[in-house]
Protein backbone atom coordinates (compact mmCIF):
# COMPACT_ATOMS: atom_id res chain seq x y z
CA UNK A 1 0.00 0.00 0.00
CA UNK A 2 2.80 2.29 1.00
CA UNK A 3 4.71 1.25 -2.09
CA UNK A 4 1.81 2.34 -4.28
CA UNK A 5 1.72 5.68 -2.54
CA UNK A 6 5.43 6.11 -3.00
CA UNK A 7 5.26 5.04 -6.65
CA UNK A 8 2.50 7.58 -7.22
CA UNK A 9 4.48 10.28 -5.49
CA UNK A 10 7.56 9.53 -7.57
CA UNK A 11 5.51 9.42 -10.77
CA UNK A 12 3.95 12.75 -9.77
CA UNK A 13 7.44 14.25 -9.42
CA UNK A 14 8.40 12.71 -12.77
CA UNK A 15 5.37 14.31 -14.43
CA UNK A 16 6.25 17.67 -12.89
CA UNK A 17 9.86 17.23 -14.00
CA UNK A 18 9.02 16.56 -17.62
CA UNK A 19 6.57 19.43 -17.60
CA UNK A 20 9.37 21.60 -16.25
CA UNK A 21 7.39 22.46 -13.18
CA UNK A 22 9.77 21.11 -10.52
CA UNK A 23 11.79 23.47 -8.39
CA UNK A 24 15.38 22.61 -7.62
CA UNK A 25 14.53 20.94 -4.29
CA UNK A 26 11.98 18.68 -5.97
CA UNK A 27 14.37 17.88 -8.78
CA UNK A 28 17.09 16.92 -6.31
CA UNK A 29 14.60 14.81 -4.38
CA UNK A 30 13.49 13.07 -7.57
CA UNK A 31 17.06 12.27 -8.57
CA UNK A 32 17.78 10.92 -5.09
CA UNK A 33 14.63 8.77 -5.14
CA UNK A 34 15.36 7.39 -8.61
CA UNK A 35 18.88 6.55 -7.56
CA UNK A 36 17.98 4.91 -4.27
CA UNK A 37 14.52 3.36 -4.58
CA UNK A 38 13.91 -0.21 -5.59
CA UNK A 39 10.37 0.66 -6.62
CA UNK A 40 9.63 0.16 -10.25
CA UNK A 41 7.00 1.13 -12.76
CA UNK A 42 7.08 1.80 -16.47
CA UNK A 43 7.26 5.55 -15.83
CA UNK A 44 9.87 5.28 -13.12
CA UNK A 45 12.09 3.00 -15.24
CA UNK A 46 11.76 5.29 -18.21
CA UNK A 47 12.57 8.36 -16.10
CA UNK A 48 15.51 6.57 -14.52
CA UNK A 49 16.86 5.71 -17.96
CA UNK A 50 16.35 9.20 -19.39
CA UNK A 51 17.54 11.11 -16.35
CA UNK A 52 20.46 8.73 -15.93
CA UNK A 53 21.40 9.44 -19.54
CA UNK A 54 21.11 13.19 -19.00
CA UNK A 55 23.15 12.97 -15.81
CA UNK A 56 25.82 10.97 -17.59
CA UNK A 57 25.78 13.39 -20.56
CA UNK A 58 26.03 16.36 -18.25
CA UNK A 59 28.98 14.80 -16.45
CA UNK A 60 30.75 14.13 -19.76
CA UNK A 61 29.84 17.59 -21.07
CA UNK A 62 31.16 19.20 -17.87
CA UNK A 63 34.41 17.28 -18.12
CA UNK A 64 34.82 18.29 -21.76
CA UNK A 65 34.06 21.92 -20.98
CA UNK A 66 36.66 21.92 -18.22
CA UNK A 67 39.14 20.21 -20.53
CA UNK A 68 38.44 22.75 -23.33
CA UNK A 69 38.81 25.61 -20.88
CA UNK A 70 42.14 24.20 -19.79
CA UNK A 71 43.37 23.76 -23.34
CA UNK A 72 42.32 27.32 -24.15
CA UNK A 73 43.80 28.95 -21.05
CA UNK A 74 46.90 26.87 -20.55
CA UNK A 75 48.72 27.80 -23.77
CA UNK A 76 48.07 31.50 -23.08
CA UNK A 77 49.31 31.21 -19.50
CA UNK A 78 52.29 29.13 -20.53
CA UNK A 79 53.32 31.56 -23.28
CA UNK A 80 53.32 34.42 -20.78
CA UNK A 81 55.25 32.34 -18.27
CA UNK A 82 57.79 31.27 -20.88
CA UNK A 83 58.23 34.86 -22.09
CA UNK A 84 58.68 36.08 -18.52
CA UNK A 85 61.14 33.26 -17.78
CA UNK A 86 63.20 34.07 -20.87
CA UNK A 87 63.23 37.77 -19.92
CA UNK A 88 64.22 36.82 -16.38
CA UNK A 89 67.12 34.65 -17.51
CA UNK A 90 68.26 37.31 -19.99
CA UNK A 91 68.13 40.01 -17.33
CA UNK A 92 70.16 37.91 -14.88
CA UNK A 93 72.68 37.10 -17.60
CA UNK A 94 73.07 40.80 -18.37
CA UNK A 95 73.38 41.56 -14.68
CA UNK A 96 76.12 38.93 -14.33
CA UNK A 97 77.98 40.36 -17.31
CA UNK A 98 77.64 43.81 -15.80
CA UNK A 99 79.09 42.63 -12.49
CA UNK A 100 82.36 43.05 -14.28
CA UNK A 101 81.90 46.76 -14.83
CA UNK A 102 84.13 47.17 -17.87
CA UNK A 103 83.67 50.00 -20.27
CA UNK A 104 84.21 48.98 -23.87
CA UNK A 105 83.08 52.27 -25.35
CA UNK A 106 85.63 54.63 -26.81
CA UNK A 107 85.52 57.92 -24.97
CA UNK A 108 88.13 60.58 -24.51
CA UNK A 109 86.42 63.65 -23.14
CA UNK A 110 86.89 66.33 -20.55
CA UNK A 111 84.35 68.76 -19.15
CA UNK A 112 85.06 72.16 -17.69
CA UNK A 113 82.76 75.09 -17.10
CA UNK A 114 80.05 73.63 -19.34
CA UNK A 115 82.52 73.09 -22.16
CA UNK A 116 83.16 69.63 -23.57
CA UNK A 117 86.78 69.07 -24.57
CA UNK A 118 87.00 66.36 -27.20
CA UNK A 119 90.54 66.96 -28.37
CA UNK A 120 92.30 63.73 -27.38
CA UNK A 121 95.71 65.38 -26.91
CA UNK A 122 94.23 67.95 -24.55
CA UNK A 123 92.31 65.31 -22.58
CA UNK A 124 95.41 63.11 -22.32
CA UNK A 125 97.29 66.21 -21.12
CA UNK A 126 94.77 66.56 -18.27
CA UNK A 127 95.19 62.86 -17.50
CA UNK A 128 98.98 63.37 -17.38
CA UNK A 129 98.52 66.22 -14.89
CA UNK A 130 96.23 64.05 -12.73
CA UNK A 131 98.68 61.15 -12.74
CA UNK A 132 101.57 63.50 -11.95
CA UNK A 133 99.63 64.70 -8.90
CA UNK A 134 99.08 61.06 -7.99
CA UNK A 135 102.78 60.24 -8.43
CA UNK A 136 103.93 63.17 -6.29
CA UNK A 137 101.42 62.39 -3.57
CA UNK A 138 102.32 58.68 -3.57
CA UNK A 139 106.04 59.47 -3.39
CA UNK A 140 105.44 61.88 -0.50
CA UNK A 141 103.34 59.25 1.27
CA UNK A 142 106.02 56.58 0.84
CA UNK A 143 108.81 58.97 1.93
CA UNK A 144 106.88 59.87 5.07
CA UNK A 145 106.19 56.22 5.75
CA UNK A 146 109.92 55.42 5.47
CA UNK A 147 110.72 58.32 7.80
CA UNK A 148 108.23 57.02 10.33
CA UNK A 149 109.64 53.48 10.11
CA UNK A 150 113.16 54.78 10.58
CA UNK A 151 112.16 56.85 13.58
CA UNK A 152 110.57 53.74 15.10
CA UNK A 153 113.85 51.85 14.50
CA UNK A 154 115.82 54.62 16.19
CA UNK A 155 113.44 54.67 19.16
CA UNK A 156 113.81 50.92 19.55
Amino acid sequence: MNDNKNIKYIEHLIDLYFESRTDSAEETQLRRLLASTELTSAKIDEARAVMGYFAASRAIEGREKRKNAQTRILPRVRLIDIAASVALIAAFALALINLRPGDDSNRCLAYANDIVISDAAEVMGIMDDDLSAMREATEDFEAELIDQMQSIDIDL
Partner: protein
Amino acid sequence: MSQILLLFTLLAIAFGQAAAQTGLNIDSAFDGRFRSSPDAVETEISGKTLKNSALDTYRSITLTEPALTSEIEALVLKDGAAAETRQVRYIEGRLYYAYYIFKPVDNYRRYLFFINGFLKGGKKMTLIYMAGEATPEQINKLISGRK
Protein backbone atom coordinates in the same frame (compact mmCIF):
# COMPACT_ATOMS: atom_id res chain seq x y z
CA MET B 1 52.72 33.08 -11.38
CA SER B 2 53.23 35.41 -14.34
CA GLN B 3 53.05 38.44 -12.08
CA ILE B 4 55.71 36.99 -9.79
CA LEU B 5 57.97 36.30 -12.76
CA LEU B 6 57.39 39.82 -14.06
CA LEU B 7 58.33 41.24 -10.66
CA PHE B 8 61.52 39.19 -10.57
CA THR B 9 62.32 40.30 -14.12
CA LEU B 10 61.98 43.95 -13.15
CA LEU B 11 64.14 43.36 -10.09
CA ALA B 12 66.76 41.65 -12.23
CA ILE B 13 66.78 44.55 -14.70
CA ALA B 14 67.18 47.00 -11.84
CA PHE B 15 69.99 44.84 -10.47
CA GLY B 16 71.64 44.86 -13.90
CA GLN B 17 71.45 48.62 -14.10
CA ALA B 18 72.99 48.97 -10.67
CA ALA B 19 75.75 46.54 -11.51
CA ALA B 20 76.62 48.54 -14.64
CA GLN B 21 78.04 51.31 -12.43
CA THR B 22 81.48 51.19 -10.86
CA GLY B 23 79.81 49.96 -7.72
CA LEU B 24 81.49 52.66 -5.64
CA ASN B 25 80.09 55.63 -3.79
CA ILE B 26 82.14 58.02 -5.92
CA ASP B 27 79.78 57.17 -8.80
CA SER B 28 77.64 60.04 -7.63
CA ALA B 29 80.56 62.49 -8.03
CA PHE B 30 80.71 61.51 -11.70
CA ASP B 31 77.04 62.15 -12.34
CA GLY B 32 77.83 65.37 -14.20
CA ARG B 33 77.30 67.79 -11.34
CA PHE B 34 80.80 69.29 -11.71
CA ARG B 35 80.75 69.61 -15.50
CA SER B 36 79.27 73.08 -15.46
CA SER B 37 81.43 74.35 -12.62
CA PRO B 38 84.17 76.90 -13.43
CA ASP B 39 86.16 75.38 -10.57
CA ALA B 40 86.22 71.81 -11.81
CA VAL B 41 87.57 69.65 -14.61
CA GLU B 42 86.17 66.18 -15.18
CA THR B 43 87.70 63.62 -17.55
CA GLU B 44 86.20 60.47 -18.97
CA ILE B 45 88.47 58.15 -20.95
CA SER B 46 87.70 54.61 -22.03
CA GLY B 47 88.35 52.08 -24.74
CA LYS B 48 91.13 52.23 -27.34
CA THR B 49 92.82 55.30 -25.88
CA LEU B 50 93.76 53.29 -22.80
CA LYS B 51 94.73 50.00 -24.40
CA ASN B 52 98.47 50.45 -23.67
CA SER B 53 97.80 50.86 -19.97
CA ALA B 54 95.70 47.67 -19.51
CA LEU B 55 92.92 49.91 -18.25
CA ASP B 56 89.49 50.23 -19.81
CA THR B 57 88.18 53.12 -17.73
CA TYR B 58 89.83 56.25 -16.45
CA ARG B 59 87.85 59.01 -14.80
CA SER B 60 88.99 61.99 -12.81
CA ILE B 61 87.77 65.16 -11.19
CA THR B 62 90.03 68.09 -10.33
CA LEU B 63 88.63 70.82 -8.13
CA THR B 64 90.20 74.22 -7.65
CA GLU B 65 87.63 75.41 -5.10
CA PRO B 66 88.22 74.08 -1.54
CA ALA B 67 84.55 74.42 -0.60
CA LEU B 68 83.63 71.68 -3.06
CA THR B 69 85.98 69.06 -1.65
CA SER B 70 84.13 67.88 1.45
CA GLU B 71 81.43 66.12 -0.54
CA ILE B 72 83.97 64.07 -2.49
CA GLU B 73 86.01 63.42 0.65
CA ALA B 74 82.93 61.85 2.29
CA LEU B 75 82.32 59.58 -0.71
CA VAL B 76 85.96 58.49 -0.82
CA LEU B 77 85.91 57.68 2.90
CA LYS B 78 82.85 55.48 2.39
CA ASP B 79 84.55 53.61 -0.45
CA GLY B 80 87.62 53.08 1.69
CA ALA B 81 85.64 50.70 3.87
CA ALA B 82 85.31 48.28 0.96
CA ALA B 83 88.90 48.52 -0.27
CA GLU B 84 91.22 45.55 -0.10
CA THR B 85 94.38 47.67 0.11
CA ARG B 86 94.48 51.15 1.64
CA GLN B 87 97.03 53.90 1.93
CA VAL B 88 95.52 56.79 3.83
CA ARG B 89 96.80 59.96 5.41
CA TYR B 90 94.87 62.58 7.35
CA ILE B 91 95.77 66.16 8.12
CA GLU B 92 93.97 67.76 11.06
CA GLY B 93 91.17 65.24 10.87
CA ARG B 94 90.59 65.71 7.16
CA LEU B 95 91.37 63.13 4.50
CA TYR B 96 94.49 64.34 2.73
CA TYR B 97 95.64 61.30 0.75
CA ALA B 98 93.96 58.02 -0.11
CA TYR B 99 94.93 55.25 -2.47
CA TYR B 100 92.57 52.30 -2.51
CA ILE B 101 92.78 49.05 -4.42
CA PHE B 102 89.57 47.04 -4.48
CA LYS B 103 89.27 43.27 -4.55
CA PRO B 104 89.61 42.07 -8.16
CA VAL B 105 86.75 40.28 -9.89
CA ASP B 106 88.05 37.93 -12.61
CA ASN B 107 91.33 39.89 -12.78
CA TYR B 108 89.32 43.07 -13.21
CA ARG B 109 90.66 45.64 -10.78
CA ARG B 110 89.48 49.02 -9.59
CA TYR B 111 91.68 51.74 -8.18
CA LEU B 112 90.71 54.95 -6.43
CA PHE B 113 93.06 57.78 -5.73
CA PHE B 114 92.37 61.02 -3.83
CA ILE B 115 94.61 63.92 -2.88
CA ASN B 116 93.37 67.10 -1.26
CA GLY B 117 96.24 69.50 -1.90
CA PHE B 118 94.39 72.39 -0.20
CA LEU B 119 95.22 70.83 3.17
CA LYS B 120 98.95 71.34 2.49
CA GLY B 121 98.77 74.76 0.90
CA GLY B 122 98.15 73.40 -2.61
CA LYS B 123 95.68 74.67 -5.15
CA LYS B 124 93.69 71.63 -6.14
CA MET B 125 92.02 68.40 -5.16
CA THR B 126 92.31 65.40 -7.46
CA LEU B 127 90.13 62.30 -7.58
CA ILE B 128 91.05 59.47 -9.98
CA TYR B 129 89.14 56.26 -10.66
CA MET B 130 90.78 53.60 -12.80
CA ALA B 131 89.52 50.17 -13.77
CA GLY B 132 90.74 47.34 -15.94
CA GLU B 133 93.10 44.39 -15.88
CA ALA B 134 96.11 46.50 -14.90
CA THR B 135 97.91 45.11 -11.87
CA PRO B 136 99.06 47.41 -9.03
CA GLU B 137 102.59 47.14 -10.47
CA GLN B 138 101.34 48.35 -13.86
CA ILE B 139 99.57 51.24 -12.15
CA ASN B 140 102.82 52.14 -10.37
CA LYS B 141 104.61 52.12 -13.71
CA LEU B 142 101.85 54.22 -15.23
CA ILE B 143 102.16 56.92 -12.60
CA SER B 144 105.95 56.78 -12.27
CA GLY B 145 106.24 57.47 -15.99
CA ARG B 146 104.77 60.93 -15.34
CA LYS B 147 107.32 63.58 -14.47
